[in-house]
């Protein structure tokens, strides 16, 4: 008898299991392309083991999404079932489980070569990888797959769950769809994050990203929102945890903090991203990646790496200077970074320093990199052992005190860094001082 379930060995989840329809997606061109997109862009130049790809990450996200769906739907209370009628119909539940796993599988198909590197600067206005993901899921080739399934999957449903409300503000989400999309891309318990922390940590060779995801997944529940303020809360349902899972949720947030501060925001990793962006702007026709799905599917890290190696050793090739900085490891070095004294005076001190140095020595010698985490401590409902629902931030000291990672680097060309550093030392106070509206109008 032919197999209907297929197993794939995985470094994090041991086995990832797929059915025939999921395997059809796996065999599709958009998904196979992910074998050639590094999960962490050029991070392997700093952490040599970090050569893993979006392909295995996407399989891991599907595996975790299925597990979370089963746990939260099996453990829904009558109160939650009355708010979310989809839980009461087995056929509907089966439909959404399949849609969720497909969305998880496809959530990254729109990534550009080298993943996040300079996405905003390298796509036309209004485009990002999520919009490309939407276009691919809704393409004729993928729609043919969704329609062969019984019952057929609506591509709009897969889009909603794959990108979530944050990146699909033009679509309307029901409460049920919001919760399902949170299973994949949510700030608190999104399995996208769970998988990338575990996987990036494993491949980079650092322990920071590990946490007890088995315990966390087992304790996830759909719960009513916890009261916020003494006048009570909303009845809206949200993803939360049983009291016994709070420590594993804390560990997830600490893992995120450490991975951001140690790996994702590592200064040398960041400057390689900027050099890559500069290279791509010169190498790409019109300085942008194409938003045409066919063109997108033809371009992977392999084509870009080939061009980088070619340009690094040929001064006539577009992007030669930037390619050389990457390939020959002549990257810019940190001249200025965020520090508490300057932040006290001007939270945007890096921009002021970058601007002043550019005026003094020429802008081409410097690069500025400003980024901060976009979410703080997650406020999710926790069900205590006595059945009471409270906010995670009311029961966890740890969650309240996880720092926000924020970087503000100015990098300088090695040929000028000493001189620039000396000048900045002499002029720092006046450079950092914010202008305000007295000077700006």
């Amino acid at each position, binding site marked *: 008898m032919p197999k209907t379930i297929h197993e794939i060995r995985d470094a994090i989840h041991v086995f990832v299991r797929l059915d025939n329809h999921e395997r059809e997606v796996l065999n599709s061109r958009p998904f196979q392309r992910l074998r050639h997109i590094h999960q962490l862009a050029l991070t392997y130049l700093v952490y040599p083991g970090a050569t893993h790809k979006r392909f295995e990450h996407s399989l891991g996200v599907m595996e975790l999404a299925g597990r979370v769906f089963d746990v939260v739907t099996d453990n829904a209370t009558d109160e939650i079932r009355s708010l979310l009628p989809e839980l009461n119909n087995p056929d509907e539940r089966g439909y959404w489980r399949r849609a969720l796993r497909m969305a998880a599988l496809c959530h990254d198909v729109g990534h550009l070569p080298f993943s996040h590197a300079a996405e905003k600067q390298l796509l036309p206005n209004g485009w990002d990888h999520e919009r490309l993901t939407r276009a691919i899921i809704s393409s004729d080739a993928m729609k043919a797959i969704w329609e062969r399934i019984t019952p057929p999957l609506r591509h709009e449903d897969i889009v909603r769950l794959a990108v979530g*409300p944050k990146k699909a503000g033009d679509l309307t*989400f029901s409460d049920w769809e919001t919760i399902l999309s949170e299973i994949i891309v949510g700030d608190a318990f999104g399995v996208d994050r769970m998988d990338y922390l575990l996987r990036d940590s494993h491949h980079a060779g650092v322990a920071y990203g590990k946490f007890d995801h088995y315990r966390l997944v087992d304790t996830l529940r759909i719960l009513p*929102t916890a*009261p916020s303020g003494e006048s009570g809360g909303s009845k809206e349902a949200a993803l939360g945890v049983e009291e016994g899972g709070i420590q594993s949720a804390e560990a997830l947030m600490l893992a995120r903090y450490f991975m951001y501060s140690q790996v994702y925001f590592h200064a040398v990793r960041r400057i390689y991203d900027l050099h890559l962006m500069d290279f791509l702007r010169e190498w790409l026709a019109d300085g942008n990646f194409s938003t045409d799905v066919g063109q997108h599917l033809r371009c992977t890290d392999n084509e870009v790496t080939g061009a980088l190696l070619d340009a690094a050793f040929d001064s006539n090739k577009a992007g030669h200077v930037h390619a050389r900085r990457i390939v020959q490891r002549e990257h810019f070095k940190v001249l200025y970074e965020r520090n508490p004294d300057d932040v006290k005076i001007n939270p945007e001190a890096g921009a002021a320093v970058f601007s002043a140095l550019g005026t003094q020595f020429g802008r081409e010698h410097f690069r500025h990199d400003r980024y901060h985490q976009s979410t*703080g401590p997650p*406020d999710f409902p926790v069900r205590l052992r006595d059945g009471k629902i409270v906010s995670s931030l009311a029961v966890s000291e740890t969650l309240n005190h996880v720092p926000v990672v*924020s970087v503000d680097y100015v990098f300088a060309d090695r040929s000028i860094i000493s001189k620039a550093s000396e000048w900045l030392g002499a002029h720092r106070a006046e450079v950092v001082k914010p202008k*305000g509206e*007295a000077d700006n109008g």
Partner: protein
Amino acid sequence: MDRLRRAAVLTRLIEELRRNGSWCGETHVQKATLFLQDLMHVPLEFEFILYKHGPFSFDLRSELTSMRADELVKLEPQRGYGPRIDTTDRIKYIQGLYSKTLDKYDDSISFIARKLGVKGVAELERLATAFYVTANLAVDHSIEERATRLTAVKPHIEREEAIAAMREIDQIIANSKH
């Protein structure tokens, strides 16, 4: 609006909400900012979509996180409830740099803080969703029609509550014009 100017306005709003009795958790700040921007036309440039407890801005969440990293605001954990947001001493310096901007928007900020300061999350959810529904319908609709739309997007809100929210929002919109 540049980031520091916006921080000056947001922190003034937080101060006024608290002065008017608000719990001032994230939801309170989210909904008050929606009204300040879309009802009072203060150009904060946040994008709101229907999400948690009605209209919600991921950009604003990101801005509040960034302001926390810069120690312009802080979280005050509360036993049994979600945390309250408060400003820090550091904000006086930033507000001082943008005193002309604050003078320009102080009346709008005070109006919103007076109207919303005493309201809890459930009331704010109803009111902000009522405002969002009203503002996003192409033509004028009756209170009943808009209440039907509100309960369609937030099914856990009762119809009577939706109708009451629509009445109140019409009143707030009318008052904002005086």
